[in-house]
């Protein structure tokens, strides 16, 4: 019974992640361009910059997990200045996350990922894949929360992103 429990957990999170990002982008795209790019004093400034950071963060971790190069220089890098292209990049990353989680097994989850950090000149890091994935999904939720707050400041009827709502919707 426990053999498939943890891969399933991450697969479910991957599916929720895609759903939440679609909902968030739908809401963000209701804004005009100025409102979407406005510096609202978040850690990365604007909704646009925060959404770019999320794509960058995921691309970095997925490349580390696949042992490939991500080609990203900084965590605040603007990968796509055009929102439509950013959205397509978001969807591509979410599909990659789903694919990665679909291929997981207990051994991979328990294995240690070795990588180099973005900061401090690329120090070596090592973490269990389970922790990397927990971080990846948690980091998404954290920054979505930031974007959500910035959206409700403009559009009070921005829909919630609760995992519970997702679970009710998808049965």
């Amino acid at each position, binding site marked *: 019974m426990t053999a498939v429990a943890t891969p399933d957990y991450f697969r479910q999170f991957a599916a929720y992640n895609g759903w939440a990002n679609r909902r968030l982008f739908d809401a963000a795209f209701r804004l005009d361009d100025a409102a979407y790019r406005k510096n609202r004093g978040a850690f990365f400034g604007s909704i646009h910059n925060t959404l770019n950071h999320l794509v960058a963060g995921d691309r970095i971790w997925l490349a580390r997990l696949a042992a490939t190069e991500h080609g990203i220089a900084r965590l605040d890098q603007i990968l796509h200045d055009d929102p439509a292209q950013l959205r397509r990049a978001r969807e591509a990353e979410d599909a990659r996350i789903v694919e990665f989680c679909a291929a997981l097994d207990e051994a991979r989850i328990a294995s240690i990922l070795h990588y180099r950090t973005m900061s401090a000149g690329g120090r070596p890091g090592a973490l269990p894949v389970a922790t990397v994935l927990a971080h990846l999904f*948690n980091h998404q939720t954290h920054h979505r929360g930031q974007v959500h707050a910035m959206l409700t400041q403009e559009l009070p009827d921005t829909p919630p992103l609760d995992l519970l709502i997702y679970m009710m919707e998808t049965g």
Partner: protein
Amino acid sequence: MLHDMFKTLARFNAWTNTGLYESCARLSDTEYKRDRKAFFGSVHNTLNHLLVVDRLWRGRVEGWKAEISSLDQILHKDFDVLRVARVAEDTAIVRLVDGLDAKRLLQPLKYKFMDGTPAETKLDLVLMTLFNHQTHHRGQVHVMLTQAGIKPVAMDIIDYENSGRRA
């Protein structure tokens, strides 16, 4: 393996709430209560909401009824009192997760929504919801802090792992 992950998430939750509350303590009372139009309005309301929902879920899992009448209920008007309650709740969450039988994680939890509607959700998804909900609203508080000119302390899982405060 799944149980180990939830034990880490419970400890991460406690650690990151400590950091968040340290950052929030630097707000003036006016800034702390200012309606910044997050889903629950202010930092004060959002932190209270988090405690409300955690108590609701912990009650459902442990089999007691949390005295909550609405999701936007203000449990504690005073930040220092709320902070003490937060630490107690986070300790209780660690204890709850540590004490779980790993088999129970895959079993459905039967509970009722606030309006009395019966529901059933696998316990691992309940815990996923609880921890994800925390992080979501902490993200909102984080924006409100930076908007108030406070630079919050680092609070992601990588930071937690690097802090040495492991499970």
